[in-house]
C-alpha cells in the first residue's frame, strides 16, 4: 500500500538547510496499525505529513497504492486525501463555530457526495464514536476528548483506507486518550490502516508495529505481538 525508498526532506531557510528526513525506507501493507515514535525534532511528524500527502519529499520516492507522489498534481493529491485518507490532529482542527454535524460533513462537501447521502454518512460516523447526542452541538462547546472523537468521525466519514493520526492523545487527559485510542484500535480491527505518530510509549503500544525515528532516519522497525499497559482503563 505504502512504499517509501530513501525518502528525504530538507527545509532551506536563507542560508541554513535543515535535513528533517535523511533517507527513510520502509513499506506498509494494508490493514497495519503502525506507530511512528521519536523524540521532538526527530522527523516523525515530517514523515507523517509526507505519507499523508500534506507535504512533498525533496528526495527519494514515495508510492501510495501503486502511484508515485511525483506523478501526481496538487489536485490529484487533494482527491486522494479526500477519498483514501483520514486525518486526526493533536489540536483537533475543528471549525469551532460549526456543529458536530457540519464539521463531519466538510470532507463530503469536497467529494461532491449528494446531500441525501451525506446525512446518513455523517450520522453513521458520529454514532461510531458515540457522540450521536451531540450531533448538533457547536464543536467549540465540547470537551477535549469529545472534540478528538469528532475529529475521528470526520476522518472516517468518507470511509478512507488509511487513518493518519498526529499525536491524537497529546492534548487529552489519560482517560479521554484511552477512549480515542480504543476507537482507533476498533477502526484498525475493521480493516483500516492506521498510522500514528506519538512520543508516548503506552499510546504507541496500541499498534502492531513501531517505527522509531531519530535524527531523520529509522532507528528501529519492530513488530509487536503482545502489548498494552492499559489494564486499569487509563493510559499510564
Amino acid at each position, binding site marked *: 500500500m505504502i512504499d517509501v525508498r530513501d525518502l528525504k526532506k530538507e527545509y532551506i531557510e536563507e542560508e541554513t538547510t535543515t535535513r528533517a528526513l535523511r533517507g527513510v525506507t520502509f513499506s506498509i501493507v494494508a490493514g497495519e496499525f503502525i506507530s511512528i515514535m521519536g523524540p521532538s525534532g526527530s522527523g516523525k511528524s515530517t514523515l507523517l505529513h509526507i505519507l499523508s500527502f500534506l507535504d512533498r519529499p525533496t528526495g527519494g520516492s514515495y508510492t501510495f497504492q501503486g502511484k508515485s507522489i511525483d506523478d501526481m498534481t496538487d489536485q490529484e493529491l*487533494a482527491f486522494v486525501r479526500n477519498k483514501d485518507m483520514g486525518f486526526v*490532529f493533536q489540536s483537533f*482542527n475543528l471549525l469551532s463555530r460549526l456543529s458536530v454535524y457540519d464539521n463531519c460533513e466538510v470532507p463530503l462537501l469536497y467529494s461532491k457526495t449528494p446531500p441525501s447521502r451525506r446525512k446518513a454518512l455523517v450520522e453513521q460516523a458520529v454514532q461510531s464514536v458515540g457522540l450521536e447526542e451531540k450531533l448538533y452541538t457547536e464543536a467549540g462547546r465540547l470537551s477535549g476528548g469529545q472534540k478528538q472523537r469528532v475529529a475521528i468521525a470526520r476522518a472516517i466519514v468518507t470511509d478512507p483506507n488509511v487513518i493518519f493520526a498526529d499525536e491524537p492523545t497529546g492534548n487529552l487527559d489519560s482517560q479521554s486518550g484511552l477512549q480515542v485510542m480504543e476507537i482507533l484500535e476498533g477502526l484498525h480491527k475493521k480493516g483500516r490502516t492506521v498510522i500514528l505518530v506519538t512520543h508516548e510509549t503506552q499510546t504507541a503500544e496500541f499498534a502492531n508495529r513501531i517505527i522509531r525515528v531519530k535524527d531523520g532516519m529509522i532507528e528501529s522497525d519492530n513488530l509487536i505481538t503482545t502489548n498494552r499497559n492499559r489494564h486499569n482503563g487509563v493510559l499510564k
Partner: protein
Amino acid sequence: MRFKDAFKTATRSLTHGKMRSILTVLGVVIGIASVIILMSIGQSAQNLILNQVQSIGSNLIIVIPGAPSNGRFSSPAAAQGIVITSLKQQDIDSLQREPTIDYAVPEVRGQAEVVYGNNNTTVGYTGSTADFFVVSNLAKVSTGQTFSKSDVDSGNHVVVIGPDLAKTLFGANIDPINKTIRVKGVSFRVIGVLSKGGTGAFGVDIGNLVVMPISVAQKQLLGTNYYNVIVVQANADYDPDFVKSRISFVLEHNHGITNSSKDDFTIQTQADILSILGTITSVLTLFLAAIASISLIVGGIGIMNIMLVAVTERTREIGLRKAVGATNRDILEQFLIESVLLTFAGGVIGIALGAGVVGLLYFVISTFFDIGWVFAFPISSVILGLLVSGIAGIAFGIYPARQAARKNPIDALRYE
C-alpha cells in the same frame, strides 16, 4: 465542491461575523448609492432640459448668425458671444413670404438695469415683434396685454414683464399696468404682466423677462440693426427638415452664398437641439457616475483589505479544508463567493438607499421649488449597480482568494 454547497459555506462564514460583514459592505453601499443618486439626478436634469426644449414645439426652428460649427459640441460663433451681423430685416421679410413658414420672429437680447422708483434689479431683456408671444407660447398675460404690431412699427416705449420682476419692482400692492419703468435709462410703460413664471425654453427666466418692441430695443438700447436670433415656426404641414432646407435656401440667396459650406448662419431644429443636449447631458450623467464610482473603488479596497485579514485569520481553516480534500480551486471559489456576496449585498442595499434618497430629493424639490423637476430612476442604474457590485466583488476578491488558494496545507495547519 458543488456551487450550492460553496454558496452555503460562504454565507455561513459571513453570518458568523455579522458586524464585520456589515461594516465591510458599508463602503460599497455608499459607493453604489452615490452612483444611483447621481445617475438619477443626471437623468432628471436631462429630462427637465429636454422637456423644456420640447415645450417650445417641434415645429420651431432657430436661426443663429454665424457659420455652423464643425464639431458636434462646439457652438456657433454667435453663441460664444462673437458679434455677427448677418441676420437682417431683409431675411425676415423673405422668410415671411415663404409658404412653408407660419412665423419668422426676430429677437435681440441684452442685459440692463430695470428701475421703478427706488426698486431696481438687473435682468435680461428681449426685443422682438408681436409674434414673439405667439411662438413662445406666452400670449397669455395675467393683467394688461401684449404689445401689437403697431407698437413695434411706431416704436412705442412699452414692455411686457414677467411676474417675478413685477413683484420685485412693484411689490404686492401696486398694479404695474401703465406704470413707467426705466430700462437702461430709457422709459417704458408697462402694458402687461405674464401669467406664469418659472424657467422657459433654453433656460429663459420667464419670471424676470422684459419684452419690448424690437424697433425700440435696437434703436434706443442697443444701437444695432441686426438680430441675435430668428425663431421660425414652420407650417405644420411641412417636415421641419424640409423647412430647414427652405430657410437655408432663402438666406443663402439673400446673403449671396453659392456654396453652403460658407453659410454665415446656423439653423437648428428642435431635433438638432435635443440631440446635442441629450448627448451633453448623457456625458454629464456619466461624468457624475464616474465621480461617484471613486467611492465605490474605495469601498472595494475595503472589501479586499478585510478579505486579506480573513484569509490570514482563517489560515488553519484553509489548511484543514485542504487536508480533508479541498483543492486550490475549491478554496479560491469559497473566498471569491464570499467577497462577491459582500459586494452584491452592498449593491442591493446601496440601490435601496439610493432609491430612498432620490425619492426624498424629489419630494423636497417638488414641494419647495417650482422648476418642474421630473422624478427619474433609470432602471439602467439599477442594472449597472448590481453589475458593478458583482464585478467589484470579483475584482477586489480575486487577490485575497488566490492568496488563500495558494497556501500550502501543512504550513496552513501549523499557522499560529
